[in-house]
């Protein structure tokens, strides 16, 4: 199993930390992982993205230009990364602020209105965990307990009281993700 993922959105949406939690969840299940962020001028106030690779084998290139899954959280990222999903691959997006919805006919498309849901739940900070939950509904990559363990590993201890809230957000994501179009 190898899963190559791009997560892209605005800086501050929790794109990089979501990638880190995915990686730690993989580590908990003995997988090889790599996490390659954008660290250039774009992260200083603009878009942020991270390439995550999870695999049962030694990972070759941490830098790739086509993906099994794209998780897209703003319009700029949609414009940049929709075309990079492999045919038959998965695109998950949040509809908030999206003016041009995905148009590809050869990939699986799911929508999760996580920004809206996070506001309803009373904390915009859990936005990325709702998205993560939705993604893990579509791709059952790990046991949920590995994700919670991964969350614990990647959060500093002073934030561990936030884990139940984040866990709730992951569960909410599992419930609210919607299929838009599938090819398989």
């Amino acid at each position, binding site marked *: 199993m190898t899963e190559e993922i791009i997560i892209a959105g605005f800086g501050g949406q929790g794109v990089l930390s979501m990638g*880190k939690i995915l990686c730690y969840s993989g580590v908990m299940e003995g997988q090889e992982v*790599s996490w390659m962020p954008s*660290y*250039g001028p774009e992260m200083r106030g603009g878009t942020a993205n991270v390439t995550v690779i999870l695999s049962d084998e030694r990972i070759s*290139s*941490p*830098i*790739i*230009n086509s993906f099994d899954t794209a998780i897209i959280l703003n319009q700029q990222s949609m414009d940049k990364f929709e075309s990079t999903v492999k045919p038959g691959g998965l695109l998950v997006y949040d509809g908030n602020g999206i003016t041009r919805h995905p148009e590809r006919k050869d990939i699986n498309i799911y929508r999760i209105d996580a920004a809206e849901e996070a506001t309803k739940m009373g904390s915009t900070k859990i936005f990325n965990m709702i998205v993560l939950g939705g993604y893990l509904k579509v791709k059952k990559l790990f046991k949920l307990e590995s994700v919670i363990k991964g969350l614990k590993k990647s959060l500093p201890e002073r934030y561990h009281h936030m884990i139940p809230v984040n866990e709730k957000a992951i569960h909410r994501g599992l419930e609210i993700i919607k299929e838009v179009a599938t090819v398989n």
Partner: protein
Amino acid sequence: MEEFVLMKGNEAIAEAAIRAGTDGYFGYPITPQSEVIEYLAAAKPHERTGMVLLQAESEVAAINMLYGGAGAGKKVMTSSSSPGISLMQEGISYMAGSELPCLLVNVVRGGPGLGTIQPSQSDYFQSTKGGGHGDYRLITLAPASVQEMADFVSLGYDLAFKYRNPAMILSDGAIGQMMEKVKFKPQQPRSKKSPDWATTGKTPDRERNIITSLDLDPARQERFNEKLQAKYKKICEKEVRYEKIQCDDAEYLFVAYGTSSRICQKSMQMAREEGIKVGLFRPITLWPFPYNEIRMMSGQLKGILSVEMSAGQMVEDVKLAVEGKVKVKHYGRMGGIIPTPDEIVENLKQNIIGG
């Protein structure tokens, strides 16, 4: 048993530095390696091992602090990125000329000048062919993973002290910034003993130790240079390190180090799916360069693509290795652009197989 943790390459170097029993780190922050000093500051190494951590006022000051610490026989290191390493060149030449061991880390970014903060491999010439003045060499290690970022810290120190010569870890912004699993060696105590050449105060039973790179007498200076060259020859004979991946049946070869070698591994898989028998040769020591090991493969090869994020620096050593027996070309991107696996396959097809 130590467990795997997820860390950036820069953080792995910092943790490995504490565990290797480093006596002192002196540095000045610069993107894309500022996490080294950030991690060290947060890890409080003075509480863990008594290690000194000092943010110098400039890179020039930092390298001269290394000179002082190394002269006293201590395990000292610094890290920086390209423009900062350029500032250190005078001090590096002096340390080589005074036969002082130290560990240098260059997390390379695009140049020349201030360039960009994105990854590059355009400091190959600077590290392997000089950089500073005079006939000296830097032992240069090129990690290709976060694990190797950690492992090469103690390897670098071992080589530096074995040969009394500065050693350099030549990494790049991509490996510095990316996170992978890493497992650390247990904590090594800081050494209580000083090497016999260190300037720790004269005792009645020996001559005083002098550490200098100056000798105005040309005859003596020539003898000293001959001694240095003999040492470098020994390093070339004994310390070459490399990795060969799927080279047994290879008709074509990628030669690449660091980030480029990781990308080439993917290119190799893609090309092999199309039936192209290509292997990957990864130099781990860039100096001493594995000339013989590449030369020995030249009989089986139809062409070599040297891949580096530069205008073509390592390719000169690959050409020297095969002595014109095999076609050698360079492919690379500059200015902080990272080549993708498929553009490397395309280049192999056009310029090596078809060209």
